[in-house]
C-alpha cells in the first residue's frame, strides 16, 4: 500500500470534459516526472517534446460500456438465501458491471438505489443470492453468489449474452459516473478516440486527451503506436474501507501478435515502451517473460504492481492524477520512489492540476 500523504482539495476534481469547459480535448496540463525525481510542467499537446523517434506508445483500445444499469428485484429463489420480504426487497438497485467472467457471467457491484452520497445507505437494502433483477425491455439477471475475493461484488447471470447483451446494455445502460462530475455526461465523453473493443466498465482514461491530429503528428515524427486491450473494472467499490485495501481485481486482456512484435522490436532497437495508462502496464507486465520479451495472448490478470515490482516490459507511463488512496499510486511507485512522487504530487496540487478521468496528465519517463 502506498505511503504518499497529500490532501486533494475537492475543487481539483475535473467536473467536465475539457471540451465542455472551453478548451480542446488535448489542451490539458502535463506533469513530466523523470524517474530520478525531476519535474517539468507542460501542456499535453506538447507531449512530442518529451518523446523520441523510435519510441512506442502502447494504448489500451478497450471501449467503455454503459455499465451502470437500473433494475428492480422481482423474485427470489426459494432454495437460496431468501430474505424476509420487506420494503427494501422491492426497492430498486443500481448495478455496476465490473468484469465479464470466462463462463459468461458478470461480477457486479450492487447498490441500493438511493442517494449515493449517503454512504450508510448504499448497501442497506436486501441483496441475496438467488434474487432476480429486472432491468426492463426483456433483460433480467439472476444473482448467483457473492465474490469471495471482493465481497461487495456479486456474480450475475444475464438472460441475454454475447451481441444481444451488448446491444441491450446500450439501450438501457449509462456510463458509470461519480459524484464529482457536474452533469450526466453522455457515454461519448467516456471514450478515447481510438477505442475499438467494447468491454470496459470505466474508461481507460489516460489516453482520453489524445486527438487523431496529435496521433497523426506523432506518427509523422517517428513515434509509433501499438494497441492492446485490457477491459477495466471499477475504480471504486463505493466502500471506503474496501477501497483502501486495494483488492486486486481480475481483468481480461488481449495482446495481439502484431502488438507484441511491435513492442519487442522497439525494445530491440533501443526505443522506449511508453504505456498509456496503468492498465497497459498491468497487461504488459503480466505477459513479459524472464528475457523481457512480451508474449501475445489472451488471459486474465490479477497482477498487483508496487514499489517491489521490477518493471520488465515498460519504460515509461502516461497516466492521470491519482487520489491519495488509489491503488494506481502503488503502481506509480514501481516507476518512481514514493519519496520523489510525493513532492511532485504536492506541487501538482499547488499548481491546481485537475484530477480524475477528465483531468490533467502525468508522464513518467
Amino acid at each position: 500500500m502506498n505511503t504518499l500523504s497529500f490532501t486533494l482539495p475537492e475543487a481539483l476534481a475535473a467536473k467536465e470534459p475539457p471540451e465542455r469547459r472551453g478548451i480542446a480535448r488535448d489542451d490539458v496540463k502535463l506533469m513530466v516526472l523523470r524517474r530520478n525525481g525531476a519535474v517539468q510542467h507542460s501542456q499535453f499537446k506538447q507531449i512530442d517534446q518529451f518523446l523520441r523517434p523510435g519510441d512506442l506508445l502502447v494504448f489500451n483500445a478497450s471501449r467503455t460500456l454503459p455499465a451502470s444499469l437500473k433494475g428492480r428485484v422481482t423474485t427470489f429463489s426459494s432454495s437460496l438465501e431468501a430474505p424476509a420480504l420487506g420494503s427494501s426487497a422491492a426497492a430498486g438497485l443500481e448495478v455496476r458491471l465490473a468484469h465479464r467472467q470466462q463462463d459468461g457471467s458478470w461480477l457486479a457491484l450492487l447498490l441500493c438505489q438511493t442517494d449515493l452520497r449517503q454512504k450508510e445507505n448504499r448497501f442497506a437494502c436486501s441483496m441475496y443470492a438467488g434474487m432476480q433483477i429486472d432491468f426492463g425491455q426483456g433483460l433480467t439477471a439472476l444473482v448467483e453468489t457473492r465474490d469471495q475475493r471482493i465481497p461487495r461484488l456479486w456474480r450475475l447471470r444475464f438472460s441475454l449474452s454475447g451481441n444481444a447483451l451488448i446491444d441491450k446494455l446500450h439501450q438501457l445502460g449509462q456510463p458509470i459516473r461519480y459524484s464529482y462530475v457536474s452533469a450526466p455526461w453522455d457515454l461519448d465523453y467516456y471514450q478515447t478516440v481510438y477505442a475499438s473493443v467494447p468491454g470496459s466498465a470505466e474508461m481507460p482514461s489516460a489516453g482520453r486527451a489524445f486527438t487523431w491530429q496529435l496521433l497523426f503528428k506523432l506518427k509523422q515524427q517517428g513515434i509509433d503506436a501499438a494497441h492492446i486491450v485490457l477491459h477495466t473494472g471499477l475504480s471504486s467499490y463505493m466502500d471506503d474501507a474496501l477501497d483502501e485495501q486495494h483488492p486486486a481485481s481480475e481483468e481480461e486482456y488481449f495482446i495481439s501478435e502484431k502488438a507484441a512484435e511491435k513492442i519487442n522490436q522497439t525494445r530491440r532497437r533501443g526505443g522506449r515502451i511508453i504505456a498509456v495508462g496503468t492498465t497497459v502496464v498491468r497487461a504488459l507486465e503480466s505477459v513479459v517473460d524472464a528475457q523481457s520479451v512480451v508474449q501475445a495472448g489472451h488471459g486474465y490478470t490479477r497482477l498487483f504492481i508496487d514499489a517491489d515490482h521490477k518493471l520488465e516490459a515498460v519504460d515509461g507511463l502516461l497516466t492521470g492524477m491519482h487520489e491519495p488512496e488509489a491503488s494506481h499510486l502503488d503502481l506509480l511507485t514501481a516507476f518512481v520512489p514514493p519519496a520523489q512522487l510525493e513532492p511532485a504530487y504536492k506541487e501538482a496540487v499547488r499548481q491546481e492540476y485537475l484530477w480524475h478521468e477528465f483531468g490533467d496528465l502525468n508522464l513518467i519517463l
Partner: protein
Amino acid sequence: MAASARNMANEDMVAESMATQALKGKYVLITGASQGLGRQLSLTFTEAGAAGIAIVARDKAALEAVQREVEAIRSGAGSTVAIAAQVQTAADIDRALNEIKSQLEQSIQRPQVVAIAADLSRPADVERVIATTLSAFDGRLDVLINNASCIGLSPMPYLLDYPLEDFKNVLSTNLIAPFLLIKKALPALIGRGGSIINVTSDAGVTGYPGWGAYGISKFGIEGLSQTWAAELEGSGVRVNWVDPGDMNTAMHRAAEPGEDPTQWADPAEVTDVFVYLASDSANAVNGQRFQAQESNWGVRALRSVA
C-alpha cells in the same frame, strides 16, 4: 442509365473481383440494409466473400428477413479445389478425400451476420450500432457503407413549406449519422486500411425544387466525404462516395410516384463499384466521387488539398 451502359472494363474488373473473392475475410457494416440498395449490397458482399456483415435498419422484421437471405449464402460455394496426390492404396484415397474436404471447408465460409435494429437519427443508437458490431467482430471492421437515408416528407414539400422538425430529422439520419458512424468506426478501420463508402445522389450536386431536405443532406454528404477524405489522407483509411443513379426502390418510388420505375436500374445492377471500392484493388483510391451507372463509373477526383 441502365447497367448495360457500363463499359467492359468495369465488367472485367468486377468479374475478377468476384472470382477471386475480392472481399474475402473482410468485416463490413452496411446501414439502411433492410431494403433496396442496402439489402442488395449485403447479399453481393456476402457472395464476394465477406467474413462478417453487420446490417442496420429501423425495420427489425425486414432486417431479419435480409439476415436470413445473407445466411443462406455460402460464400465460395461452387469453388473448385485441386490437389496433387498419388493414389495407390485405400489410405491414399482417404488422405486425398480428407484434403479435398479440408480445402472445401476453408473455401466455403458462412459469414457472420449481425442484424441491428436502430434509428440512426438518434446518436445513442449510433453508439449502440458500433459497439454491437465491434463486439461481434472482436474490434475488426474493414468497410463502412453509409447507405441509410430517408426521403423526408412524401410527397416532398418545397423548402418554402418544409416544417423545421422534419427538416432536422432528415439531416439527422442522412448527414449527422454518417458523420458519427465514421467517427466511431475509425478506431477499428484505421489499423486495417479500411474503406468508407458514402452513398450520395445527383440531388447532392444540383438543387432540384421539391427535393429540399433530402437534397441538402446529400450536398452535406458530398462535403462530409471530401473533408473526411482530406483529413484521412495518408492514414490508410480511404473515403469515397457513390451516386448509384436512379434505382427502382421503395424510397425512390415514394419520392417520385408519377414516374415509371421500370426505367430505373435494379439495385443489383449498381453494386459493382461498391465491391471494387471495398476491395484491396482500390486501396489507393481516396477522395473520389463515383457514378455507378456511368461509363468508367464517372469517376471524378474531388479531393481537397490536405
